[in-house]
Structure formats: structure tokens, C-alpha cells
């Protein structure tokens, strides 16, 4: 059929295909199967996999993966409340943290996705593995804003609840701050900071020096914007934050 169209068009198609054949080894993220309503903030929950091909795993392992996915989904739902819509993204899964490049972050940001989460079950017997987080609004603050939190037992960590979902209120707080909704931002930033501290003090996480350093960098930035958010929120008449007192250096922080 193509030969009826235009002699140049077939040639162009061939050239274009040749150019893009070289780039096929790039980012492997598919679209989220259910990206949700365009107006809401969203949290994407990707697949939980084993390092090997998950589809070939035994029924028991499959069930375990499903349980981890379910816990992750429910935890994030509880942590974000009415502030975000948690979406099950089906088979979407990053091959590597580097899949979250600038283009991917821009795409997620334009869809109002604040957080994307995925899981890897390394040891199906012991249950050890890691949960990955892409913190979309944190990208300008602490690039690349992708964190992989290791856990000796994924299911146990998720059962404990708040630790693994600490990033949800944090990113929502950052986004509210960026949107200049300072009062809403303070509450979420404080909740996120508190939860994240417990992640930072987890034994497995502490063993990873680079993870700890990057987390501390993020926390430093979060404290800065929390101080700024409190100062801005205090300007509103009848603000509940007017009763908060600054520390000796004049900065504000969340109450312990």
C-alpha cells in the first residue's frame, strides 16, 4: 500500500526506523494502566517483582508478591488520605532507577503524579527486598529524587505501616508548598518528616551509607521548606501557627 503514496515517504519511514532502532534499549516504563482522574494528585503503585522473571515464579511466590503489592497500596492509601488518589499501574515497572530520567519526571509531573512506588522481592524465603520511590515534586530540591529503601523483611515492614509510606505525606507537602498552599503544606511536611525519621533510623537503611547521605540531604531541604512554609502560613490572620515559637536561630520546625 505504501508504494502508492509517495516515493519519499517510504524512504523517510526506513530512515526513521533505523534512527529509532538504536534507542530501543532505553527506558522500559510502560504507561500506567489506570492513571486516574487528571485533576487529582496521584500515587502510582507499580508491580512488585522478583529479580528473575516473576511470571515464572511459583504460585506461593506469586501470592507473596501480591500480598506485598496489596500492603503497599493500602499503606499509601492510608498515608495520603484524601490528598491523593492511589492508582494500581498493573505491569508498569522500572528496570532500573535510571529509568526515572528528566523526561519521565516531566511526564509524571504533568499528570500530577507526586509519587511512584515499586517493589523487588530479592529473597523469596527470607522475604528481604527493597521498595523504590520516585519523589516527583522533590526533583528540583534533591535530584534525582529516586530512593530505594532496603528491607530485611518487606512484609513485616509494610505491616508496621507508616515507615514505608513516609514519602507520601512528604511529597504532598512539598507539592502544596510549591503551590503556595502553606497551611496545608505544614501539616503534610511535618507528618512526612516524622515518618521519614523512622525510616532513616531503620537498621537496614542505616547500613547503606549512600542511602543515608542522600536521605539526609533530602531532609535538610525539607526542613528548609518547612521553616519557609510555617513563616508564610503565620502571615495569614488567625493562623494556628502564630502560636508556634521559633528556635534560637529564628527558624521554625515541626513540633516533636
Amino acid at each position: 500500500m505504501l508504494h502508492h503514496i509517495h516515493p519519499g515517504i517510504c524512504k523517510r519511514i526506513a530512515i526513521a526506523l533505523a534512527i529509532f532502532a538504536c534507542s530501543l534499549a532505553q527506558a522500559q516504563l510502560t504507561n500506567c494502566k489506570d492513571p486516574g482522574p487528571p485533576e487529582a494528585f496521584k500515587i502510582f503503585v507499580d508491580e512488585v517483582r522478583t529479580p528473575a522473571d516473576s511470571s515464572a515464579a511459583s504460585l506461593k511466590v506469586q501470592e507473596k508478591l501480591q500480598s506485598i503489592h496489596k500492603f503497599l497500596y493500602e499503606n499509601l492509601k492510608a498515608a495520603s488520605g484524601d490528598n491523593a488518589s492511589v492508582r494500581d499501574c498493573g505491569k508498569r515497572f522500572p528496570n532500573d532507577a535510571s529509568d526515572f530520567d528528566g523526561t519521565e519526571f516531566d511526564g509524571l509531573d504533568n499528570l500530577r503524579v507526586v509519587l511512584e512506588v515499586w517493589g523487588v522481592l530479592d529473597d523469596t524465603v527470607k522475604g528481604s527486598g527493597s521498595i523504590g520511590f520516585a519523589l516527583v515534586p522533590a526533583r528540583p530540591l534533591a535530584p534525582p529524587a529516586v530512593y530505594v529503601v532496603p528491607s530485611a523483611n518487606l512484609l513485616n515492614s509494610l505491616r508496621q505501616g507508616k515507615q514505608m509510606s513516609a514519602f507520601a505525606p512528604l511529597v504532598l507537602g512539598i507539592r502544596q508548598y510549591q503551590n503556595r498552599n502553606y497551611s496545608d503544606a505544614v501539616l503534610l511536611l511535618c507528618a512526612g518528616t516524622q515518618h521519614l525519621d523512622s525510616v532513616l533510623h531503620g537498621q537496614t537503611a542505616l547500613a547503606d551509607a549512600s542511602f543515608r547521605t542522600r536521605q539526609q540531604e533530602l531532609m535538610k531541604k525539607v526542613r528548609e521548606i518547612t521553616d519557609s512554609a510555617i513563616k508564610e502560613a503565620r502571615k495569614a490572620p488567625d493562623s494556628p501557627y502564630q502560636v508556634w515559637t521559633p528556635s534560637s536561630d529564628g527558624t521554625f520546625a515541626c513540633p516533636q
Partner: protein
Amino acid sequence: MADGEVPHPRTLEIHGTLQLEPAAVEARLKKIEEKLDARSDKGAWAWILDVLKTLLPSIVLALLGFALKDTVDQALREREIQLEAVKEMEKLVPDLQKTDLIRADAQAKAAQLAAFGRYSVPFFVNILEVGNQNAGVGAEDGLRMVARSEPAPVCAALQTVIQSRSGLYHWQTHLSALEILGQAGCTKACRDVADYRDHMSSVDNYNLWVSAPALQTEYDKVSKQASNTFEQLKRVQSTDCQ
């Protein structure tokens, strides 16, 4: 006088002159003949003119038709190619919209579509508006690819996007349009970009231009892009940007 007496004829004397001028008569006759000759000549011209008047529109039409034939043939051929291209592209567009498509595949599909040149531009603009995440990335790439060989249709289509203030497009489509206008060096859009940047003024005002309300961060992003695009175009050709 007695009866039967025949009266004598009376002599009637007439006084006057009979002037006969043969030369003048001849001259008048000649004049009449000349006039008659002239009238017969003029009649032939008038007849020719009458025929010409009747035929002139047909002659002009024939000449115009001859002159336009090539152009019309070309336009028809162009239309034929466009329709065939659209038929081919219709097969590719659903592939680009598949949920399980990774970004690289979306870009490859977009490259196939971009091979149709200017005919693919409306498809890409529509994908920017309604497509999923990876399809959107592919559409942007496709528009850049077409702009490398045929910048005019890409510039014109994206200029129309940023000229729209009636909520026809999402803010995301405006953002992509601004970005590609700058990258493709669409200097004719420079004044529109400057106007866009200067009249956004606030997020509340901007939300009247787009189909779904933008948040403050999104407004900031579009505003920053409008400024960047203007600077890019000014670098390419500053005269169009004054």
C-alpha cells in the same frame, strides 16, 4: 368682343433664370457613393466586433483553464496523497496509544508517523491533547522530526495552539507547543509568544485560556517556558521579535 370670336392667345412673359450646374451634382453623387462605401466597410467591422464580444468570455475561460489546469491537477494529486497518507496513519495512531507501550516504542511509532511529513502534524497535536504519557513524549518527538525537514506546517499548527485562549487545549498542550516552537526556531511565532508571556498575568486569568484549570506550579512552568521560548526565538532572529 362678339360671339364666336376666338380670343387671341395672350403672351405670358416669365422672367427668371434656370441655372444648371452639372459639376455640383456630380460632387454630391460622389459624396453619397463614398458614404455608402464607408457604411459597407463599417458593417464588416461591427460584425467582427459582435462575434468577438460573444466569444471573448469563452476565449478567456479557455486560456485561464489552460493556465490553471496544472495547478488544479497538482492540488488534486496532493489531496489524493493526503487521503492515502491519512489512511496509512490511521493504522499507526492506535499503536501509539497502547497502554503497554514503553517510551522507546512510542518514539519509534511516532517516527513512522513523522515520515508522513506535514500530514502527520494534526495527528501529533491531537495526541498531545488526548494521548497517554508515552504517546505524548512520542508526539513531541514526532513534531520535532517533522520540523527538521518541514518547519512551516509544524510552526503554523503550534502557533495556532498558543493563539487559542478559549479553552480548546489543556495547559500541557500549550506547554509542549511553546517548547517545540522555540526548538524549531519558529520566528514568525515570536510576537505570539511574547503576547502569551505578557498576558498570562495570573493563574486565575490563565485558567480562562485552557480546558482544565492549572495549579500554581503548572502555571509557573508554562510561564517560564514562554519566557525561554521567546529568548530562543530572539537568538534565532531578533528582528521578528521586536
